[in-house]
């Protein structure tokens, strides 16, 4: 991957512009001048302009992932805001929201400020999500107002659920003053116990401690009920089970303040893939069975889900080389995201590409309140350029994260990111 400052004039030549905001598809060139969109249309080549050959490629809004873990501060051996940015660009993501379960957690305005300052130097737009409770301990609310003022965009204790229903209620109510989403990692820890995978035939075969689907869906159901009670905004992260999909589907019919995301790995894998004890497939919530996978895919097609989010969770090789029961939960996902979801949704399940792109662009941006006018004249260039048809095998060398914990290594992908443009820089992937 090569990142360079955009030249004064850059022409994106011969591509197809897919606009997820206006729902249009046009063959057209784009002229960028001083990092801003100047002209969309037929543009004559000039000697001074830098030409980016986009023939056969699709140009669209820069992708936005509202759920990543960049481990800074505290575990810079796994990832930093800088290395995470590289992983993001490699996956076509120009904007990400980082989860606050760092060490120490992002649970104060000062901590939010630290992320904002550090993110300023990074080549992608990084927005901190603040913790719901101080120290993610579930006992006292954080200073949400002050954290928002410093630049937080949402609140979550991700990695851990807000177990206490009263605390969750208060968080939702308190957040109504600011009209921002509360994101709760839904897992009933009492029911989960020491479960490390989905409970089913496979876990029985492997003798691994497991937890059933309702470990998630019961808490999703609680959170939805609390959202109705409070009028708060709820975003349900990394939905893994068919029962959760149904709860969300029903709630969304009458509650417009509910949104939900699904990860590429829950769409791509099933618990059958765990038969070799691959610790890279150990995630929370766990990879579930074929029926759940089907329900998630259906949920994407039918609009139950608003967005795709990777839950990019880097861990060191040393930690992931442990036995399955001891390895930490989580996998990286930014670099492999598009090739995986495009393959599952567009190629295998006949979803139209534009709808999928919306789930990577305007829809996640809307949840977080980001603007969606990325293809307006005068807009600062934040674009992703990809080949929707290219078939390729994901390998270690495609990983730019500091960690390599990906079960996608060796898997066939369809669709490949070629360029990403953000913050005045062109990345050639």
């Amino acid at each position: 991957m090569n990142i360079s400052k955009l030249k004064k004039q850059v022409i994106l030549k011969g591509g197809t512009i897919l606009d997820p905001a206006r729902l249009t598809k046009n063959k057209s060139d784009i002229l960028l001048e001083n990092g801003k969109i100047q002209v969309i249309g037929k543009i004559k080549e000039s000697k001074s302009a830098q030409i980016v050959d986009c023939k056969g490629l699709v140009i669209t809004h820069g992708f936005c992932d509202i759920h990543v873990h960049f481990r800074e501060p505290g575990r810079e051996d796994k990832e930093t805001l800088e290395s995470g940015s590289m992983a993001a660009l490699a996956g076509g993501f120009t904007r990400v929201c980082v989860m606050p379960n760092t060490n120490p957690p992002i649970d104060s305005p000062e901590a939010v400020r630290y992320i904002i300052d550090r993110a300023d130097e990074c080549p992608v737009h990084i927005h901190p999500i603040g913790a719901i409770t101080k120290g993610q301990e579930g006992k006292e609310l954080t200073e949400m107002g002050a954290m928002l003022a410093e630049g937080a965009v949402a609140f979550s204790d991700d990695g851990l659920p807000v177990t206490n229903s009263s605390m969750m209620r208060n968080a939702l109510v308190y957040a109504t003053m600011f009209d921002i989403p509360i994101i709760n990692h839904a897992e009933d820890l009492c029911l989960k116990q020491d479960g490390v995978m989905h409970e089913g035939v496979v876990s029985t075969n492997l003798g691994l401690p497991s937890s059933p689907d309702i470990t998630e869906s019961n808490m999703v159901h609680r959170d939805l009920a609390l959202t109705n009670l409070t009028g708060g905004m709820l975003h349900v992260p990394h939905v893994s089970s068919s029962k959760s999909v149904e709860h969300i589907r029903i709630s969304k019919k009458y509650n417009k303040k509910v949104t939900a995301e699904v990860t590429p790995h829950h769409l791509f894998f099933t618990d059958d893939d765990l038969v070799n004890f691959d610790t890279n497939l150990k995630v929370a919530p766990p990879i579930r069975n074929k029926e759940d996978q089907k329900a998630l895919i259906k949920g994407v097609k039918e609009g139950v889900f608003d967005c795709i989010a990777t839950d990019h969770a880097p861990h060191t090789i040393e930690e992931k080389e442990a036995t399955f029961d001891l390895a930490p939960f989580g996998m990286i996902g930014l670099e492999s995201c598009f090739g995986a979801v495009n393959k599952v949704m567009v190629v295998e399940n006949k979803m139209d590409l534009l709808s999928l792109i919306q789930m990577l662009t305007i829809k996640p941006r809307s949840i977080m309140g980001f603007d969606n006018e990325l293809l307006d004249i005068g807009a600062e260039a934040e674009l992703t350029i990809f080949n929707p048809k290219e078939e390729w095998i994901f390998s270690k060398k495609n990983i730019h994260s500091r960690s390599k914990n990906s079960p996608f290594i060796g898997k066939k992908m369809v669709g490949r990111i070629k360029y990403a443009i953000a913050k005045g820089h062109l990345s050639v992937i």
Partner: protein
Amino acid sequence: MREKHLLGLKDYPAVDIQTIIDTAFSFKEVLERPIKKVPSLNGKTIVNLFFENSTRTRISFELAQKRLSADTVNFSASTSSLKKGESFKDTAQNLEAMKIDAVVMRHPSPGASLHLTKHIDSIVINAGDGSHEHPTQAILDMTSLYEKFGYLKGLKVAIIGDISHSRVALSNIYGLKTMGAQIVLCGPSTLIPKYAEDLGVKVNYNLDEVIEWADALNVLRIQRERMVGGLLPSIREYRTLFGISTERLSKHNKELVIMHPGPINRGVEIDSAVADSDQAIILDQVLNGVASRMAILYLLLGGKREEGKK
């Protein structure tokens, strides 16, 4: 043998299980001789790597190795000391650097033996990996059943007790299914996996019905710590519902073979009188354990592997 390692009995070929059983009987003859040693594995080095306490399995393996004239090294460590310093991978690679031929490993984590094969080239024999598999125990159980009945196909075997946490149960289920036996699981519903019947076995919570049906009972050890998480109310209740007592057996007028993988909690899952009775083959299992492990070691380390080995 088709497989390089013995990690578990899931999908293990029936023909190889039968070969092990047949070979075990040959070695049992050796064990009856005044000089109980053969030179089959002379010059081979085997490491017994035990990350979990074990008396009988470790001694059984060690005796089997010595009877075959292999050189053996024992390594016992708690996993907590592993967590502190040297990693699992380093331990394994250090051992291999010392030029060994095979590792017999017991480890508390499911999948640990498969994990070991990813780090070393030596032959790996699983001596128990958490609540996953304990294939050599299941093979010695099958050898004992075969010795007693002369067949496994169609044999009715009941496994009694804590199935959820039992590697002995899982390996027995896989092995016995492959050999054509019928299996019923019996124990408290809290200690039988929800998806047990998907393994191709039946579940029955009524011990008297199970005794009426079975040719043999394999009685598992019950652990007191199961009471903490609400899995068992009391040992008294367990004994009442699932204990293999003299009174209960005397209600049924039938011959029954009683097995137990040990160590026995006398007076808990099985009465002393039953464990010491003629119908119990618990001590035969122990001797067959040495013979079966000799067979496994001999076939994996000494015998020629079939074409298409993995």
